């Protein structure tokens, strides 16, 4: 036992530098969260219906000065968005000057030898100027009566055409706009910027309550009564004859045109939880913006009336 032989321990310094790569080459970690979002546009849809038995368009023939005609148009909202206002305008005018074509005698229409006392050349606008249009909201708001509200009385159809049609671009358009705007009751004339914009007469209700415009909720109708009158004038001088009424030259003339109803939306609004789901369509879980069915939902009442 003498020889003490120390075994040298292969001193294994057991400090193991383990590089632990979290991830690294053997595993990648990530995490994914997903969410869904949906956006849907509403519908703005004005429908015109006859009110009762009457026609809702004018079809008049064989008119003489002093004649007038009324139609009633039921403005209905068939969309999901409240309509702020409905602008009435005129377009697509077609005029026939009896006995003339491009200011030249047109013998196929009126044979040679016909008495010149009973017709004459004139323009479409001269013809339209013989007519006056009156507009009144007479309709019921649902569940109550509504006082007749005259929007405009006896506006020259020529001025109305010049002011509101897209196709008329004459130099006096702005004058016509001003004339019409001045004769329209209260806040009902809408000017869209300048003479090149779209102008029209608001024919929906403008009482500042929940019926303003044509709402979806409450379920609104506005009934509009339009009157067109062939104004009789006692002015004389047709064919420079002091016995003949000037209006003789309009004999046989005819015009057809569209009355255009443009429904407009309310302004944009900030949509919050309060606007969604009063239970009108679904419980609100489907995100339906319920206040967009109501009047005054975006901007305040009629900000751009002038």
């Amino acid at each position, binding site marked *: 036992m003498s020889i003490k032989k120390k075994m040298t321990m292969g001193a294994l310094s057991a400090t193991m530098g383990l590089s632990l790569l979290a991830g690294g080459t053997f595993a990648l970690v*990530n995490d994914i969260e997903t969410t869904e979002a949906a956006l849907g546009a509403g519908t703005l849809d004005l429908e015109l219906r006859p009110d009762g038995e009457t026609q809702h368009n004018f079809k008049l023939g064989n008119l003489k000065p002093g004649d007038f005609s009324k139609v009633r148009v039921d403005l209905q909202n068939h969309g999901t968005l409240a309509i702020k206002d409905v602008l009435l*305008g005129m377009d697509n005018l077609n005029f026939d000057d009896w006995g003339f074509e491009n200011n030249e005698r047109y013998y196929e229409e009126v044979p040679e030898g016909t008495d010149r006392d009973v017709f004459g050349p004139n323009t479409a606008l001269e013809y339209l100027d013989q007519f006056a249009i009156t507009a009144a909201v007479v309709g019921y708001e649902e569940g109550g009566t509504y006082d007749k509200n005259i929007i405009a009385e006896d506006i020259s159809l020529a001025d109305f055409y010049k002011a509101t049609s897209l196709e008329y671009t004459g130099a006096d358009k702005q004058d016509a706009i001003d004339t019409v705007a001045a004769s329209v009751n209260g806040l009902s004339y809408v000017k869209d910027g300048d003479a090149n914009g779209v102008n029209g007469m608001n024919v929906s209700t403008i009482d500042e309550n929940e019926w303003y415009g044509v709402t979806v909720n409450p379920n609104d109708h506005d009934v509009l009564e339009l009157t067109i009158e062939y104004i009789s004038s006692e002015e004389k001088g047709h064919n420079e004859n002091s016995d003949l009424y000037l209006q003789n030259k309009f004999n046989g003339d005819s015009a057809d045109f569209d009355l255009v109803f443009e429904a407009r939306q309310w302004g944009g609004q900030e949509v919050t939880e309060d606007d969604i789901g009063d239970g009108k369509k679904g419980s609100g879980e489907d995100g339906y*913006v319920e206040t*967009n069915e109501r009047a005054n939902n975006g901007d305040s009442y009629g900000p751009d009336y002038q």
Partner: protein
Amino acid sequence: MSMKKKMGTSILAGALGLSLIGGGTWAAFNDVEDTQNTLANGVLDLEFGEKNTIDFEIRNLKPGDHFTKTLHLVHGDTATLDINQILVSTNSVEGVWEDKDVLNLNSEVGAGSGDNSESDFLSQFKVVVSADGSQVWSGHLNQLVGLNPVDITGTNDTTAGLPVGEEMEYEVYIEFEENDDRFPNSRYFEQNKYQGEESKFEMSFEATQMPGEERFNGDDAE
């Protein structure tokens, strides 16, 4: 509210019993030492925070309507790993969108006037993303949908975009933009072709880990 998807934590408790045999077989002496080694994986867990409202559904909108939602991203309760980047991708959900022509523009105005794609529809929505009141991104929804994943942390590959303990909050403003262009020679606004249409999209937020690095004994050890 938020879909919670947990990464399974695989904890590798590695007790390595190393038998260190000193000397050869002939020796009578020996000594045995152990080292205790532990490998523990961290947890990378991204979640939507309680303020998150980006999971919206809003219908019956009209041009001009707008709203603001909050994107709130946090670490899960058990998260231990910093997040490097958060990659957002947005994809349309199939089967929701359809081209509608509520006002019959194809006959009222002219063939094709009522037609549009889902991307056209989404292009009507302006998006402004801001953080702490300052704008970080603006564009339109169609630019987001279908795009390759985009990082929203603004950090590079080696900087933690969302360190553990921090959260991320963005205000997302969305507006159905109003456009007063009308079809030529018509009173109809062009935007009428979008009436009644709807789009649904899925937003996916992918959190990535930090790159691998050399670790030293005792780091984060318990």
